[in-house]
């Protein structure tokens, strides 16, 4: 049994690629490392980083407040004794706010002197109000106990320490006014934080970039005369075009499978409805294939494809919401972003991962992507055929 001619061309193209260790680094190693790093960084998107300066020799009330801030679900805290180091962290944007407890905090409160806690916020963050409000809520709970202890000791001379212990014990059962937050919608229009953010966006980014860089292999095959030699055999230019296109598609699909697999197994990403996710992966691979084969006909040298391709891929990724959610950019840039296919793919992944969408709910982005894939594939295969027969 002989291999059909287009598949033989595909196999030859894939063999050339697999032997190229640099290409394998970009296809296999780099995406995984990028997903890891961006996933780790994006993990804290939903928590506000706060520093708490507790001066040396502070009493139990100060320490307790630092602990309670650390337990707040919206905050992640670091405790400092050195105010200068904490201020540097704030200036660099490592912290969004700094809580500075005054010296003698415990003694002053026990003596009934009101205390002001310094709340330094960073201009680096748009979260100033949110962090201020969260901190005030925690401070308010401690202040309530201190107020109650002081009130009781004034009323009946029971002593601040004893009253404070009593107030602390009573507090959980005496909440008369509670706050309850209700969401009016079912899901966000941005991807979840952490690896569920980095894995789908990097799938979109890397499949496209590697497809563009893969154009170099087509140019090299042309330069080495592989296409000319193949044409000496009884096969048509169409067979070579089909073979090369299939090779690009197989590569894009393999890379997608790798990212989906590692995302699910190593990083615990839930890719959503399997049928919808699989369809999206295939359609995106087709978009990448079209763009990749096109790059193999537009660039003149493998160096050009290898150098300019990734730059275009990164710029498209930025425009299309792979590097940051399009929700945070200006409305004009959100519209402009949807000129590149990436924005539609990220929209579709967001629907699948954040809103539990199915195939029907991503029909619109899928259709747009399919249209782009058809246009790119038609243009690129026509150009490649023209280059081979020339």
């Amino acid at each position: 049994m002989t291999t059909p001619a287009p598949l033989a061309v595909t196999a030859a193209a894939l063999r050339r690629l697999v032997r190229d260790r640099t290409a394998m680094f970009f296809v296999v190693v780099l995406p995984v490392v990028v997903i890891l790093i961006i996933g780790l960084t994006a993990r804290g998107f939903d928590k506000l980083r706060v520093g708490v300066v507790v001066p040396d020799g502070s009493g139990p009330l100060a320490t307790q407040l630092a602990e309670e801030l650390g337990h707040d679900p919206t905050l992640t805290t670091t405790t400092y004794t050195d105010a200068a180091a904490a201020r540097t962290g704030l200036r660099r944007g490592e912290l969004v706010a700094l809580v500075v407890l005054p010296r003698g905090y415990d003694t002053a409160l026990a003596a009934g002197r009101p205390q002001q806690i310094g709340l330094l916020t960073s201009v680096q963050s748009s979260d100033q109000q949110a962090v201020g409000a969260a901190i005030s809520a925690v401070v308010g709970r401690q202040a309530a106990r201190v107020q109650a202890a002081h009130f009781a000791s004034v009323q009946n001379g029971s002593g601040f320490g004893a009253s404070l212990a009593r107030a602390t014990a009573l507090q959980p059962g005496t909440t008369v006014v509670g706050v309850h937050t209700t969401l009016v919608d079912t899901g966000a229009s941005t991807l979840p934080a952490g690896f569920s953010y980095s894995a789908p966006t990097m799938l979109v980014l890397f499949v496209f970039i590697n497809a563009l860089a893969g154009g170099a292999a087509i140019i090299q095959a042309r330069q080495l005369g592989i296409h000319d030699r193949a044409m000496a055999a009884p096969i048509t230019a169409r067979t070579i075009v089909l073979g090369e296109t299939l090779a690009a598609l197989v590569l894009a699909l393999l890379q997608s499978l790798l990212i989906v697999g590692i995302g699910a197994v190593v990083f615990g990403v839930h890719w959503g409805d399997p049928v919808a996710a699989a369809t999206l992966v295939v359609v995106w691979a087709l978009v990448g294939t079209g763009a990749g084969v096109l790059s193999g006909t537009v660039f003149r040298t493998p160096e050009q494809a290898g150098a300019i391709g990734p730059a275009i891929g990164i710029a498209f990724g930025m425009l299309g919401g792979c590097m940051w959610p399009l929700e945070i950019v200006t409305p004009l840039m959100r519209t402009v972003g949807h000129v590149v296919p990436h924005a539609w793919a990220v929209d579709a992944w967001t629907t699948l991962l954040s809103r539990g969408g199915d195939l029907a709910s991503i029909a619109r982005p899928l259709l747009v992507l399919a249209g782009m894939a058809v246009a790119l594939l038609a243009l690129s295969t026509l150009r490649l055929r023209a280059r081979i027969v020339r």
Partner: protein
Amino acid sequence: MNAALVIARKDLRQRVRDRSALVLGILAPLLIATVMSAAFGSAGSFHTTVGVVDQDRHELGAAFVAMLRSPDLSDVVTVRSVATPAEARRLVHDKKLGAAFVLPLGFTPAAHGTATARIEVLGSSDQAIAREVSAALAESFAAQVNADRLSVLTALATGTSAARTAHLIAASARLRLPVSTRSGDIGAKRLTAISYYAPSMGIFFMFFGIGFGARSYWLERRSGNLDRMLAAPVRPAEVLAGKALSTLVFGLASLLTMAVVTSVFFDAQWGPLPAAAALVFAIVLAAAALTALVAALARSERQADGVASTVTFALVLLGGNFVFVSSSPELLRRLALLTPNGWAMRGFVDLQSGAGASAAVQPVLAILAFTAVVAGAVALLARRPVSS
């Protein structure tokens, strides 16, 4: 050393003719800086409009609305009365309101009795900050009411007679929480996206020069050019120095273009000129040394490409050129300081946030130390025989 200059000059001429180098060195970073600048055009301060559905119509409901409308909060929220919870839901859903509060019927009587009264905050997934700010405002209102009640109960529990309850309630209503927060800032300058990504993307693309330089060294070997050069009184180290020098000039041209264009057209802040220039020069020097190292390590043109790509991406990933490293976990922030570009970004962040020019000293020294180690390794490797 003259030979190194000649080789560098020839390489640079080739590089100018090779459009891909120009694209990577100048056009790509500018294109990406433009995209970023457009994406993050205006990042104003936070303000939102909240709705209030006051079904309570008693004193606590009125006190809550008065707190929201207080001058202290006018910078943060604008308050709008809404008739029904359903309408409030719709307005929040349609993003006409950042969030809404519902004070239910019987809120005040419940709070004065033993039942729990609840302020409901209606928020949407996409307006997380407005939702959190609103929840926290409701929490701080609740804190005072709850504190007053806790005060009465604590007094009763520690010995005050139950007969004095009415007196205690009246007295507690005059209490104010003894701990408050006082806001301030540390006088830092705002770090904008363009100010961070201009140097970070500039360095990223400048690092591509490492691959170009190292690759061209091995291309010269394949074409026999290198043998011809070595037939002249030129040492292998001088050839490597020439390659490094061309990366140095290419890198300087690339980063300086980026600095000038982003400063003039996009208002990127690179920091005080001498300090920023020192950082730029140091990081370009490091790239030049890395070029020589990759050329000396590799054994073929393909290997040079592979090693350069691996080194470049390892450095930019660890060094924080793709992510705002300040908001990364501490481990990543520490790892970034193992790379020269991580130190450069640390220096630029310090300069841009107003730390003063002296903040560049430590990063420059760290980058120079890295460069010295790399140059030492190159010197050792260059002693290996050239012929394969």
